């Protein structure tokens, strides 16, 4: 037993003894802690999935709340469950993420723009790759990736929604990267 009782431990102890309101207070109190851990550990997942993970962890705590040994400190138990569930969330999403790219278009990493063009800054080579794209995609790449025009302007000029613009750009760059790789000796 600790000298100064963890308030969370007190709440869960009451909850496990059947005190529903104490249980609700416990879950509310741990939610920001879990959210912080999930955000820190699951940085490579899209932010909108963080809250899903938080809920997975809460559910895990709920289903396994009887496995906390009241004679032991609460935190190691709580962190172990959180860690397990965050890793589990990765595992699940790693195995079954086949979501359409449009869902992620606003969180696609911006640095992707630099990547396919890094070793190919010879204008002719880039132009050759651009010729393989449809005219609108080629213009998007020229404007955003090569001329560094603000995306808002480009989307207004080409009459594309910002989301559509980023998807077009992302796909065009991927296509160019693939074409470039194919040409390599």
């Amino acid at each position, binding site marked *: 037993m600790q000298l100064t009782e963890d308030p969370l431990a007190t709440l869960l102890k009451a*909850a496990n003894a059947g005190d529903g309101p104490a249980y*609700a207070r416990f879950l509310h109190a741990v*939610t920001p802690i879990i959210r912080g851990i999930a955000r820190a550990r699951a940085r490579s997942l899209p932010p909108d999935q963080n809250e899903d993970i938080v809920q997975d962890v809460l559910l895990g705590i709920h289903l396994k709340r009887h496995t906390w040994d009241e004679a032991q400190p609460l935190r190691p138990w709580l962190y172990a469950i959180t860690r397990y569930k965050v890793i589990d969330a990765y595992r699940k999403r790693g195995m079954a993420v086949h979501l359409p790219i449009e869902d992620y278009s606003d969180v696609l990493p911006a640095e992707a723009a630099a990547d396919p063009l890094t070793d190919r800054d010879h204008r002719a080579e880039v132009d050759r790759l651009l010729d393989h794209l449809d005219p609108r995609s080629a213009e998007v790449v020229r404007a955003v990736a090569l001329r560094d025009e603000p995306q808002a302007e480009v989307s207004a000029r080409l009459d594309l929604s910002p989301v559509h613009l980023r998807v077009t750009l992302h796909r065009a760059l991927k296509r160019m990267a693939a074409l470039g790789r194919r040409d390599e000796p």
Partner: protein
Amino acid sequence: MTQTDDLIQRLSRQAAIAPLRPAKLGVAMGLSVLVPVALFLLIFGTRPGLGEAWTNPVVPLKTLLPLTVFALSLALVLRLIRPEARVGAAGWGYGLPLAGAIALWIGAFAMRAPQARFADVNAFSLEECLGSILMLSVVPVLVMLRMLRIGATSTPLLTGALAGLCAASGVAAGYSLFCTRDNPLFFVTWYGVAILIVTAISALVGNRALRW
């Protein structure tokens, strides 16, 4: 956020569940080994002249080595039912029975004439030994994995493996009272193989069954 708040409200209205009682689970796991083994020995009997055979110091080891592994594995498995638990330094406990088994094997290999070394190994004795340990382990492995699902291990593969190790070594300790082959080259090898097979299968099953 409101979705999460909803979830909390729903969860908090559910009834509390009884706390985990590792000692109770441990007794059930122990019985899951003891009952099938006791039935086996009741039906087929212990080996003739068991007491006399034990005057040879090698023979009791045939029972005591797996019994040590059984006891250690049971303790570890019961520890791992809590998510924060780790095997830690206790894993070194396997060093003693493992060293004992290896020493027995090497000693027997060195002391026996080449043609006497593997004289016991034939299809029938293998089938009897391997087959019995494997068959007798089925129920304890299933019971143990079932019990472990009540807990919340954060290492399903390892916990599954230790459950298999526990079940099979407990069974092997019991089976050794029936087995008449006292050549360590035989029993260390084939008990070991049987235990490892059960451990591997239980690890694979546990890796799926013990997730939560």
